[in-house]
């Protein structure tokens, strides 16, 4: 591109930037009683326009130079794929090991353990949604609904029937799976994007119902004093009721609120490991291969005797049940839940974790969950910019790596691993 063209192109970009910025950035409305007053920020507009002009110019001139350089072939060789799988495996073990010893590290204070727990909840949700979106290729924009079902079923079962966490956990998963089937049965025949909008609507419906059915769900105030799980019957409180012992008494430790946090951390770690194990296993079973095949070509699947609706339904139900498990953990960790925790932004975040991680990749989900949870934490001081940066980062990461952090897929089976039976 010649410099003259570049200048013209940059000028157009700057002009659009001017139109975009002029009213929204340049004029600020101020509340002054009955009528809105105005306040000007034309210097900001000038800065934005100048940045866009110069930035565009630089990009164009730089790109013009790069286009002349020969491009490298981008195909991954099979051997490279094998290496990648190996690195992925090492990375996975490294992350696992780090997760196991994290609470024992010297820097692991309340804040670190709490944030790590938060990351693990999203990892688990990401792995659950990965079954639906990454493997089966079904676009679910309302995954948070199952998370909510899990959280509320734990809270309600515990409060109304006095069941403990371990009794509620499988029930919450079952309820979530049931809701998955309930939603999936009528809509799974729909084409991809219709499915997206119906699931999105379903997520909103669940939230609205939770918000308005006050006698059952507590409405917008939510449910409070949800029982905490105990460590084999030992409570994590300062003092135990008559005749019982607390965790710190039993082990002869100084009472510390960190005990419960660390316990919670290991609890979600175990749940996450279980999820990872189950999903990794299923991927290598016929059901998992059928999910992936469905993503690749539904018609070919049908011609091979695969029941499309049933296969999608299992993906939906299993993905939902993991959401349910994560939900009950969330409820017991917070001790308080309200519909506000289950908005569309949660669904979007979980979906972003799956897609940013690389569809179908478990390690990718861990990386993406870490990035997306830590990003707002890092920018916590800039409360106003926080979500802005979050949204912008989603756009930029997608443009930077459209296939996600880990885009290569590891085959579920290799002929090399099966020796020819002795003839």
């Amino acid at each position, binding site marked *: 591109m010649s410099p003259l063209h570049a200048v013209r192109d940059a000028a157009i970009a700057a002009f659009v930037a001017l139109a975009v910025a002029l009213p929204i950035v340049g004029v600020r409305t101020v509340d002054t009683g*009955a009528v809105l007053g105005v306040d000007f920020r034309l210097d900001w507009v000038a800065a934005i326009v100048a940045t866009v002009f110069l930035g565009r110019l630089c990009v164009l001139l730089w790109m013009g130079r790069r286009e002349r350089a020969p491009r490298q072939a981008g195909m991954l060789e099979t051997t490279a794929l094998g290496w990648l799988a190996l690195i992925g495996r090492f990375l996975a073990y490294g992350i696992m090991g780090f997760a196991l010893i994290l609470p024992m590290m010297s820097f692991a204070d309340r804040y670190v353990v709490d944030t790590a727990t938060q990351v693990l909840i999203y990892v688990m949700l990401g792995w659950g949604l990965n079954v639906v979106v990454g493997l089966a290729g079904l676009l679910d924009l309302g995954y948070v609904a199952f998370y909510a079902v899990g959280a509320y079923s734990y809270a309600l079962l515990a409060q109304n029937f006095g069941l403990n966490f371990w009794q509620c956990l499988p029930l919450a998963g079952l309820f979530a799976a049931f809701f998955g089937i309930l939603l999936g049965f009528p809509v799974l025949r729909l084409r991809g994007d219709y499915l997206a*909008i119906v699931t*999105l*609507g379903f997520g909103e419906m669940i939230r609205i119902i939770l918000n308005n059915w006050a006698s059952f769900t507590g409405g917008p105030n939510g449910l409070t004093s949800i029982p905490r799980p105990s460590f084999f019957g030992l409570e994590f409180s300062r003092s135990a009721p008559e005749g019982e012992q607390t965790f710190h008494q039993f082990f002869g430790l100084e009472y510390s609120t960190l005990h419960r946090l660390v316990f919670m951390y290991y609890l979600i770690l175990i749940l996450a490991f279980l999820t990872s194990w189950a999903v990794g296993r299923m991927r290598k079973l016929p059901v998992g291969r059928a999910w992936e095949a469905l993503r690749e070509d539904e018609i070919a699947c049908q011609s091979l005797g695969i029941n499309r609706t049933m296969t999608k339904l299992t993906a939906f139900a299993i993905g939902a049940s993991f959401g349910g498990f994560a939900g009950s953990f969330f409820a017991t960790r917070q001790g308080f839940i309200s519909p506000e925790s289950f908005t569309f932004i949660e669904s979007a975040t979980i979906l972003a974790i799956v897609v940013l991680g690389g569809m179908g990749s478990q390690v990718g989900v861990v990386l993406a969950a870490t990035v997306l949870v830590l990003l707002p934490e890092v920018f916590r001081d800039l409360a106003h910019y926080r979500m802005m940066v979050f949204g912008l980062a989603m756009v930029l990461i997608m443009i930077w790596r459209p296939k996600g952090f880990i885009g290569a897929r590891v085959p579920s089976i290799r002929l090399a691993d099966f020796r020819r039976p002795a003839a």
Partner: protein
Amino acid sequence: MEYFLQQAINGLTLGAVYGLIAIGYTMVYGIIGMINFAHGEVYMIGSFIAVILLALLGAWGFPPSLAILLIVLLAAIPFTSAFGWAIERVAYRPLRGSFRLAPLISAIGMSIFLQNLVQFLQGARNKPVPTALPGGFTLMEAASGFTVQVRWLQIVVVAMTVILMVGLTLLIQRTSFGRAQRACEQDMKMAMLLGIDVNATIARTFVLGAALAGIAGVMVAYYYNVVHFYDGFLAGLKAFTAAVLGGIGSVPGAMLGGLLIGLIEALWSAYFSIEYKDVAVFSVLVLVLIFRPTGILGRPEIEKV
């Protein structure tokens, strides 16, 4: 009966607005097959531009009047169009040709970004919009004393929608842009081979959709007299529902879907419960999709084997 009529009038006004937003969804979907999640934010930005321009004009000594309303409406169009163009250029065009979910995630990110940008720039409080065109006329009066009112603004909204629909239909059917747009919808590769500038056509589609959403945003600001940075999400969601209900890819379908959603919402709120109006809307969507999976005016699709 009078009560029903009143609610139907309110519902149709609301529906016309949903329809205008839905057209943007349906056209973008028709041409590049993606859900433009940030479209609802463009509508919200249209509302904010109305607030800003009215405040600006007020500060310069022009109190709101019919003429001012129309001037603001026209002035908002280039601004929201610029947003539409910029969103496409920044967040979607670099991802063209990559896999299906990448632009969707980018769009969701864009939507979150714009929402918080507006909150940051203009504040999180509700913004009041001065009443510009008060009053209306009484359409009929029941024996019980209940009167069916039509506000002047409702007439403006519906008239504007009709004018835009006629203009849009002419644009799509008669102009070279319309032909290029329809060609890209059918087969983008072939259109490119025939010398159509596909990138420009897609960009224009976004601009057109954004202009309509902006107009809808301005009119809603006048109609409800209040604007909030979070308004775009739910309106966008319902407009997309309208587009799917009408049959995605079909412009008349989008308008029909919008009107239906508006009616359902108004009537459900009037006769049942206002809290569950959105549940009703989505339930109707699910029912329609089960019995007519391609929407009301969508072409039935035979699975190609």
